[in-house]
């Protein structure tokens, strides 16, 4: 059986060292602040520095990965004699996945014997990361590249991706959310709880009063929708609010005895749109 490499992008918010450990390849999306031309990747700037800049009013812009970049990445893998399984950042939020698709199409003719399978995770941040992890586990169990791709596709409609933001203004600014009528007006003290739907879009689901309530609401969603509440892998990502992430993990542990496997930063690429204070919870559920 031909070996394959699971590949992703930096929207998955998993650390390069961890991805390397799992044997997962990745491509960085880039970002810059609009007062400068300098482009950075998640690895170039400390998250604390990044969020402090945002809090000080800095506006960060992100750039999708282009097809050429993916093509060169995929070619390198093919050159090693391996196939590619790309698990990409939601096409509902970025053109990155489309670039990967174009690259795969281009390479198909050039390398008819190689497989470049791409899966639109319709997820982001550690939700995408969680899918990568689970697929890696599947590969470890001996899944072929096709089987692994099918497995990942099967996860897509079941991923629980719930998050809250401190201020909806960042998502609105980046055009990443179209707020319903309920989310206009003075939102002082009002915290939206959002989820990512099965088209990979961000949907404000409920608005609650106060940060604490929004954190509890995330836990409520887990309780309501997790496929297996007492076991399974749960990830949390946060935009420079570790305390809240910890609080959420504590609630889950208290309620269901579940240990959150990874608490990670929402990196700049995602954080540029969700802002400081973003708190996200990822699990495999029964549906989106």
């Amino acid at each position, binding site marked *: 059986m031909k070996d394959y490499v699971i590949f992703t992008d930096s929207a998955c918010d998993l650390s390069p060292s961890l991805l390397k450990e799992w044997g997962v390849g990745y491509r960085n999306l880039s970002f810059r602040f609009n007062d400068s031309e300098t482009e950075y990747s998640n690895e170039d700037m400390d998250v604390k520095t990044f969020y402090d800049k945002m809090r000080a009013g800095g506006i960060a812009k992100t750039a999708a990965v282009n097809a050429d970049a993916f093509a060169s990445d995929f070619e390198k893998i093919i050159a090693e004699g391996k196939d590619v399984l790309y698990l990409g950042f939601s096409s509902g939020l970025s053109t990155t996945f489309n670039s990967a698709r174009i690259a795969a199409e281009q390479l198909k003719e050039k390398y008819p014997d190689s497989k470049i399978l791409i899966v639109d995770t319709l997820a982001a941040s550690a939700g995408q990361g969680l899918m990568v992890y689970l697929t890696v586990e599947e590969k470890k169990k001996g899944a072929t590249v096709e089987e692994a791709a099918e497995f990942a596709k099967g996860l897509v409609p079941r991923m629980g991706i719930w998050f809250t933001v401190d201020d909806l203004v960042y998502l609105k600014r980046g055009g990443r959310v179209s707020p*319903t*009528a*309920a989310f*206009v*007006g*003075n939102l*002082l*003290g*009002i915290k939206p709880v959002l989820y990512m739907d099965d088209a990979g879009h961000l949907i404000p689901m*409920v*608005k*609650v*009063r*106060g*940060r*604490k*309530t929004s954190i509890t609401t995330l836990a409520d969603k887990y309780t309501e929708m997790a496929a297996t509440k007492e076991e399974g892998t749960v990830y949390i990502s946060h935009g420079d609010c570790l305390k809240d992430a910890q609080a959420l993990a504590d609630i889950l542990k208290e309620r269901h005895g579940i240990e959150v496997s990874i608490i990670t930063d929402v990196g700049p690429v995602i954080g540029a749109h969700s802002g400081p204070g973003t708190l996200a919870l990822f699990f495999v559920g029964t549906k989106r």
Partner: protein
Amino acid sequence: MSEEMNKQQPIDAVEKPGTEAKPVAVKTVTSASAATKKTSTAKKTGASKSKTTTQKMAKSAAEAAAKTAESAKKALKIVAESKTVASIKSAVTETKNAAVAKIEEYSKGKSKIKKTTNAKNAKPKTVAKPKRTKKKNSGGIKYLGGMLLMKMARGGAMLLRSNAEEVNKLNVFPVPDGDTGDNMRMTIESGIAAIENMDSDNLAEVMRTLSHGMLLGARGNSGVILSQFFAGTAKGLEGKDQADPATFGHALEMGVKQAYASVMTPTEGTVLTVARESVEYAVSRVTPESTIRTLFADLVKEMHASLERTPEILAVLKEADVVDSGGAGLLYIMDGFNRVLNGEEIVDTSAAVSASAPAPAVSAVLFDAFGSDSEMTYGYCTELLVRLQSKKTDVHAFDVDALKVFLASIGDSVVAFQTDSIVKIHVHTFTPEKVLAHCREFGEFLTVKIENMSLQHTSQLEDAKPEPAEEKPESAPASKKYGVVAVCIGEGIEQLYREFGTDEIVQGGQTQNPSTNDFLDAFAKVPAEHIFVFPNNGNILMAAQQAAELYDKATIHVIPSKNIGTGYVALSTADFSEEDPEAIALGMTEAMKRVTAGYISPSIRDAEINGVQIKKGDTIGIVEKQIVVSETDRMAAACGLVKKIMEGDKFMLTVFRGKDADAAEQEALNAAISDICPDAEVYFMDGGQEIYPYIFVAE
């Protein structure tokens, strides 16, 4: 009231048909002498006719008189606003002049007033009621018809109007609030407006029209209960073009039933009890010999007694040393009915009344309306009680009309009338000093009140007039599923409510309770299938619910918000994309249960409540109808309140900054709050509300 009058024997109107004393014209009654004459006449007649009945009646009526007096006295005590309200006696003594004036004024409207000079005086002595009005031969009425009912209702409205301010003062908390007297007055006046052009002797028709007008004009919970009482009575009279005492009594019982049904959790010791007990008593006394007059006499008599018992039932009343205000309002109305039955004409002193008493706190709030650069535009509302002095003028031949002519030459809105040796004067003028100088030519002042009307003008804008029950304009056809109507006042608050989808704001709040009709008007402007209503005040809730019952163009969901803060919390989390309106309403109602709201307010008088000593001008903090803190310093009061409401596992505090709180104070308060609850999320909103410098909502 003079001591001399006090010594007279208790006496009251003779109830036996055909035994009326000779009519004595109002203007010719000069003082106690006439009253004494009347007393002896009445006694004689009573003795000569049916001794037992009459004496019994006189006795019970006298007791009733004592009760009214007691109520009035309690009202007076509040009026007095004396620094130490330790005892009735001292309050009355301290404010003797004011009391004299009030009592004179009241007795002009034929009240029975008791003055206890000795607190231990077991047998209350009553003032003989001077019969100054012409008596019609209405004693033997076996059937009540529409025409007479209209007259009675007008009398009832008039008597309440003349005494509305007294009812307003029966206030448990020393904070500005919805005035029961005004609310009930506007409610019944709305009914009166509805029958204004009626020319029918059909009892059912008149009662139906009257009560419908009241339903629409009802404001404040007391107004709503009152209107329901009448509506129930109207139902009981349906199909009856006239009613005998038994029938009318039964209708009143239905009125009581409906009044009770209008309240979710009826509280005894309120107007409900007063209505119920008096109706029960009156009905129990009905015999084949009864007349409409005896029915009302019994009703009013027991109403006095029942009102007097309210503080024994409701601890808050006892603590504040007042009787129930709603009950008092009902008594004035029914007493007015009764008096008309007895042939009395009830004098309208309303101009004087309405001008006489802007609530102290309101005027304090409105001082800003006349600043150092303001122009005098409206003049002064000038009101005097002048005691004519025999050394200066011929008291009995005093020419009030000449005085009116003089007043009209220097001002307008002139009201002047004489009762015995007291002349009451009301005039709007730019030169009040001329009024004073002129009046001293024939007497001395008992009271003087001169108010800059630039301030008053502002308050009158808030003083909504009762509206006649008009046909509603056509409602806009529903073009959306959900709409919101909210009661609030204050620029910031209104903006916040609008941002969360409020279609119509009904102007109103603590001191200004909108009517049922105001709600209906607002509903008609909202083109939605379902309308959520936020009354934002406990005393406005029932008017909103009543409007909801009456409105048929949309489904109305009343969200029982007690203040603008809790209402805001509910509205701000509402999800109007939800399909099920009941789920939205439930969600909002549940959201409110999770919050504790409190507010601080200046105290408008001295008081002692829950053992808390309160001085006028102190800032008091109120949570769930409880005074939890009273401090001289506003910031200290605010902090005390915050501590209280953040108890338990509260993690979030929203503060609505009022009109008269500034940014610097907010800054300081914010810092203080961080010390009190360092982990809490604190949000300040620019509410711009009147009266309350801060409203706090803890979640």
